[in-house]
């Protein structure tokens, strides 16, 4: 079954001069379970907008997004927040973490929000961080005491530990050097293969495109190419 079903999605912004900008111009898209897909396109093509709409962070001008069978248009406010908490994971380009919490606490926090009991929380958070190569010593550091690559690995752990249906990653490697970025992507690909976690990336990073198993190209808010690799 498809986890994400996007139908005729349109998003129109107004720029500073109140001129309408069609950031998404009728997108149709299905993402199946276990996919490792990248959306690529030039700057301003609408990648972030698309991910935000799939993630329920923003409302479309028209069209619909279904995630795990749920039409996001039908949810609002707290219900949408609750839906994100249970079904969606987010990794942003940078500054993903809560600065005053340690790496471990950051990962635990989302489980706490989900209502997972304390012992299980710590156990799962440790395991997830360990799997992403964060040592016991690093777990107790705050984000500012970690390198950019380590921070992104913690962000991945926070997304995966919550067992969402899909993880939306908006240019997760854009702030990393190519070696660190490559290792992070390999890790995510590995988790995709071993645990069947579904990932959807937006990127203009060649490395991401190379590792993606499906590549969707968009330009001016339209899908121009969609191929399996």
């Amino acid at each position: 079954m498809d986890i994400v079903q996007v139908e005729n999605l349109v998003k129109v912004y107004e720029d500073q001069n109140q001129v309408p900008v069609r950031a998404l111009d009728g997108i149709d898209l299905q993402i199946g379970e276990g996919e490792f897909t990248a959306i690529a396109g030039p700057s301003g093509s609408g990648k972030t907008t698309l991910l935000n709409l799939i993630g329920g962070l923003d409302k479309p001008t028209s069209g619909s997004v279904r995630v795990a069978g749920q039409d996001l248009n039908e949810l609002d406010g707290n219900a949408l927040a609750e839906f994100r908490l249970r079904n969606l994971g987010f990794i942003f380009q940078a500054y993903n973490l809560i600065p005053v919490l340690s790496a471990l606490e950051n990962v635990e926090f989302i489980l706490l929000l989900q209502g997972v009991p304390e012992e299980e929380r710590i156990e799962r958070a440790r395991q997830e961080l360990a799997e992403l190569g964060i040592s016991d010593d690093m777990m107790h550091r705050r984000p500012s005491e970690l390198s950019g690559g380590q921070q992104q690995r913690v962000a991945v752990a926070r997304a995966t530990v919550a067992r969402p249906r899909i993880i939306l990653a908006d240019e997760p490697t854009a702030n990393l050097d190519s070696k660190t970025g490559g290792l992070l992507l390999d890790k995510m690909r590995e988790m995709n293969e071993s645990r069947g976690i579904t990932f959807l990336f937006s990127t203009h990073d060649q490395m991401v495109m190379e590792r993606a198993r499906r590549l969707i190209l968009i330009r001016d808010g339209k899908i121009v190419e969609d191929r399996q690799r």
Partner: protein
Amino acid sequence: MKTTLKIAWRNIWRNPRRSWVLITTVVVAVIGYVGTTSFTRGFMYEMVNSAIRYYGGHIQIIPEGYDTKPNIQLRLSHPDRMAEALARVPGIHFAPLVTFKGMASSSEASGGVVINGIDPQKERQVTIVSEKIIAGDYFESETANAAVIGEELAERLNVRLGEKIILMASALDQNIASGAFRVVGIFRTVSTDFDRAFVFIRLDDAQKLIGYQDEITAFSIHLQQGYDLQQTVERLRETLPPGDFKIQTWRERNPVLVLSLEVYEYFIFLFLLIIVTAVAFTIVNSFLMVIYERIREFGVMMAMGVLPKRIRRMLYWETLFLTLIGSTVGIVLSYLIFGYWRRHGLDLSATSDALGKLGISTVIYPEILMSDLLIGLGVIVSLTWIAVLYPAYKASRFHVVDALNFV
């Protein structure tokens, strides 16, 4: 909850400088409040104390109608029976009093006075004039027709210890009665008015002067520490034999004083509101800065599924921690600063003239009341909470996408 508290607590220390500025603001406000309140309380206490301890005690038993129209025709007959009853009431000392207006004169001058006949032994247990003797004594020698007068009056009449004065008053039979009295003691209280107007003689001398038998004008009653005024009034009402008398508390005797006590009460609260409002504005200001610094973070949290109300709660806790730290430090410092004066008193002799005119001691002992501290704390916590409502509301209303894009 625990995590919300943890995040709130750690957020305080992200910008220690700003937090310390806020805490210091609270500390200064608390010290200002405690200082003002405790000195005002001490001052109020002195006012009440003067009203009670120099004359009349906490409660007086007076003839019916005497409070509205005092005159010597109004008197308590059979005071011995009353005294018997009074002796059965716990927690009080009482003393008989005969009081009337009159004139005191020496060979050089004269002036209107209030003549008071007292029983020195009993009076000592009720009022403290006996402790304010600066020359001579308080009816200790056997001297007949002895008078104890204030320093101010002695100066006006130009009489010294051992010299004679003439006391004149109209007697029961409407005739002018007079007698020669020897000054055996001179007192100085905090009130120059009191020292000019009040003359004390022995009870039987006073009775003889105006033609009383064993009648008296009043019983003055001193309430011992820990006994409640109203309860004692009730007790007296039950115990005393029925008669034409009235039980009057110091509050009823001093309506103007009671009014000014109420005014001071309002003043304290108003002052509290003003300083805390100033603190509240500082908090609004700082927290508006705080939330703009954390917009992105709020965005990430909301994307994860953190509810706006949790973000608001984090900010409430953050202010609560700041105000609690500030209040605690403020209260501790207040005790250190004002504690010294609490023990030794603050001598306001520089302004004592004015205070003396008001009949208030020149040494004020600031009084830090638990109830004042709790009210202060309550007002600070609630007003700062109100102050942070607006920034918190703004923080929770950011659009997720805008918050995430904010740099």
